[in-house]
């Protein structure tokens, strides 16, 4: 009786289809802790009170044991100071969290989102803003935000040229930093043109992450900035008329560089961490990172040669700030706000900048701090692979995000398939 079997099968499908709905009614929360109050009108004390006892799910990249350890310390601190349980949701890519929020929005989950806080910047921020996936503006509510002195430090409120408009709170700084093995490289290149000469003298010992990895894209942007006559043009959106003329020197440069790269430019490392691994394996002699203290930290962790040294190109390199943001449907907004505020506290920022902990540069403006706090921030251990703070003063601004798209597309068309 196939008909009978089919009927049973269909009934079963209907039963299983209704099961999740049953769960939904059982599991849907009774408390309205995610309900949106007009947060701006609520005083900070009441936010802290509301945050008590909340569990904050912080979705953050989990690829670095040092960063993970720091986040564990933050969790201990907010537990004892604010009675917040902070859980680090370790991701291999922030995009996973963006997917989650997107799926929740698609499904109409507007107040009980599973992501409370997210570590991001640049493209992920732009994408979330464009699709209204973020809560805010909220930074003005954070008591510690004023310590960053946003009026005098425009990078605090601009993310890849895009104004943050209070939708993300600064956490740390990054600057493109090259590092090399001083035992193999006596005079490292200090400009993009010198890099080309160096590569032809040392073929196969340099590479950059495959586009569209963000570090690879940063390398393209840095090269473009050093090759264009007037870098100011890059701060504006791409103009279809002139784009080919502006990018032509970059593609010429890469055409010459690629045969001199590791694996003859036929294969690229997948990411910055893989680039670092290749340095550790001795396959490369020169590489770069976005975290100026990463070389020192990873020499200590046995991942890079003890003879590793860092450098910044003449004329400076690209730099940016990384942020934390709160999804529009975060269930524990109050808790997330309190954690974001704690991350900006002098205590948390000092510890983060300590090279023995993480070494991520602070976003606080030392003018806003008292003498003891300033002294604590300056008091960081020295390491031969670490550049002095003065070397990190020449920071180039990120080009307008529309250039990212153009460069990535151009690269993939030219070199993405050989």
């Amino acid at each position, binding site marked *: 009786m196939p008909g009978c079997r089919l009927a049973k099968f269909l009934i079963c499908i209907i039963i299983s289809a209704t099961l999740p709905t049953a769960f939904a009614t059982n599991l849907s929360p009774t408390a309205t802790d995610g309900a949106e109050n007009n947060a701006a009108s609520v005083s900070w004390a009441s936010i802290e009170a509301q945050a008590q006892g909340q569990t904050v799910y912080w979705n953050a990249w989990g*690829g670095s044991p040092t960063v993970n350890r720091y986040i564990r310390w933050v969790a201990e601190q907010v537990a004892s100071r604010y009675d917040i349980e902070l859980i680090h949701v370790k*991701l291999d890519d922030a995009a996973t969290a963006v*997917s989650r929020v997107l799926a929740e929005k*698609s*499904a109409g*989950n507007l107040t009980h989102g599973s992501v409370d806080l997210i570590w991001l910047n640049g493209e992920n921020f732009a994408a979330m803003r464009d699709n209204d996936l973020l809560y805010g503006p909220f930074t003005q509510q954070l008591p510690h935000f004023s310590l960053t002195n946003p009026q005098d430090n425009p990078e605090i409120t601009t993310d890849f040229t895009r104004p943050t408009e209070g939708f993300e709170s600064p956490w740390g700084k990054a600057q493109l930093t090259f590092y090399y093995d001083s035992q193999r490289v006596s005079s490292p290149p200090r400009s993009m043109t010198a890099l080309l000469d160096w590569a032809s003298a040392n073929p196969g010992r340099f590479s950059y992450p*495959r586009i569209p990895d963000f570090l690879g894209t940063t390398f393209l942007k840095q090269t473009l900035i050093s090759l264009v006559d007037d870098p100011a043009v890059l701060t504006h959106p791409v103009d279809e008329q002139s784009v080919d003329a502006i990018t032509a020197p970059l593609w010429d440069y890469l055409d010459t560089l690629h045969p001199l790269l590791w694996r003859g430019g036929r*294969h690229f490392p997948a990411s910055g961490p893989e680039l670092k691994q290749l340095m550790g394996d001795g396959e490369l002699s020169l590489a770069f990172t976005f975290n100026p203290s990463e070389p020192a930290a990873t020499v200590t962790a046995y991942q890079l040669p003890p003879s590793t040294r860092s450098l910044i190109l003449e004329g400076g390199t690209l730099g940016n700030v990384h942020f934390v943001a709160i999804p529009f449907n975060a269930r524990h907004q109050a808790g997330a706000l309190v954690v974001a505020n704690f991350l900006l506290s002098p205590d948390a920022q000092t510890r983060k900048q300590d090279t023995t902990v993480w070494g991520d540069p602070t976003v606080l403006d030392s003018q806003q701090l008292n003498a003891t706090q300033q002294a604590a921030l300056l008091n960081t251990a020295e390491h031969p692979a670490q550049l002095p703070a003065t070397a990190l003063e020449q920071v180039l601004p990120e080009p307008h995000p529309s250039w990212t798209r153009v460069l990535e597309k151009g690269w993939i068309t030219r070199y993405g398939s050989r």
Partner: protein
Amino acid sequence: MAAANLTPVTPGVFTRLIRLMPVVTLGLLTLPVVAGLAGIIAPALGWLPALGGESLSLAPWQALGQTPGLGKMISLSLTSGLISAALSLAIVLLFIAAFMETAVFRLVRGLLSPLLAVPHSAAAIGVAFLLAPSGLASRLLSPWASGWAQPPDYLFPGDPFGLALISGLVLKETPFLLLMCLAALPQCQASQRLKVARSMGYSPASAFTKAVLPGLYPLIRLPVYAVIAFASANVDVAIILGPSTPPTLPVAVMRWQTDPDLSLRFLASAGALLQLGVTAAALIIWWLIEQLLASLLTCWRINGKRHQAEQLSRWLGGSLIAALIFLLSAALIGLAMWSVATWWPFPAAWPSPVSLGTWQQATTTLGEPFRHTLSIGFAATALAMVLVIGCLEAETLRTRALSSSAITIIYLPLLIPPVAFLYGLTQWQVQFGLSAGWLAVVLGHTLFVLPYVFLSLSESYRRLDPRWSQLGAALGAKPSRVFWQIKLPLMAAPIGVAAAVGFAVSVGQYLPTILLGAGRLATLTTDAVALSSGGDRRLTAVYALTQLTLPALGFALALGLPRLLRQRRSPRHKKHRPLSA
């Protein structure tokens, strides 16, 4: 006792429950897969209101068609899937042909079963470290033999032909296919067939190919299809060993899916559907070759020649299997060395000094992931075991096997590339408000665990001598009693192995855990993947080794426990020895 009732009019609770099992199982498998697929069909046609896609269009497909290197991506997925499956199958068959029923055979079987527990990504990382220019092989030869003071610059792994990818896949699929063959051999009366052919003067390899293989192949066809589907759609091995300009199609789809530019989600959905087509194409090509070979080989099989390429097959089968075991073990040893390494520069072949620092550092944070891995693994395996045994018991009650379409549904999660339906499934999970967490993850794991459990258990269950049950029934035992007191004890060994396989599959799951659990349930595998994105090979090695400890323990228990039980039972029940033998 009601056992005297010899003409049961109404079936008991047990029988009714068992009869329901296949229906529940099929529903549980079909619904998520179909729902997941539906969840990506809409975006593939431009429909995803949350991203502003509010009208149907073919734009995602046009964008997909214009992707540079798309043809190469497709052909890479196709060829790596087909070639790796063909090679694995050839190695397994050559080996069985040459060594069936010898001591070598039992030795290899013992060596390969634990290797099955090695997670795919761990095996790939191990192989990459072994064969890369700065890898272990090159270090052992440098600088004394090769003259290399710095690593050479050859393109492997990541070669444009996908050779590294294919070898990585072969390494992982061969143990799996061998285990499947081992389960199927008794089912097709291989021993008897071999004896008859041998008595007619056929030498071992010819006897196997001409008399056993025609009976064996139909039984392992589905596992072979599962291997092709996995190999053509896999992400974790391809991302480590595969080429990058361009990558294989599934890797590209995963990149689009995780790109910060959310408008690429439409492209990713179209790509996932295309991947489904590529996997289907790979299976169809294989099926066509099967048909072709079957008709070509008929004449050859009955040509009466008794000795054909005997030495060659013996030599090939032996050396290929040996090379495989050697490579896998060397990859694991390499990982073990990295896990205790400090600064370990090229060309040093041994890490020095060694330190347990990385292990200590990791163990402080291993506790919770360990507990999650265990509880999810146990629950998913238990659920899958209940459903599978229920389905198989239903077969015996109905005295006929599940229909072939039912079997196909059971294997659906293996045949459909996970990238194609997991993202869609997450969408539905949120839609229905099934909260992300333990339960959702367990159900998600069951999707992938169940087919493997079915693969490992079904043949042994079906070939259990029906006379045991008949005897029990004749003595007045009800079906439930026959099941609990006769069948389950007799099946203890294969049930143990199936559970171990299922547990190993659960331990290795990354995407279902992270997507359905909203990343909140950290397991050994999710931590391992997150940490390996940081590029520290020492930590990756520690996690990979921990990751494979649990399944390896599972296999050890599965193989050791029944033997132990038997030893304890036999002295007390000497008279019943044949029963438990």
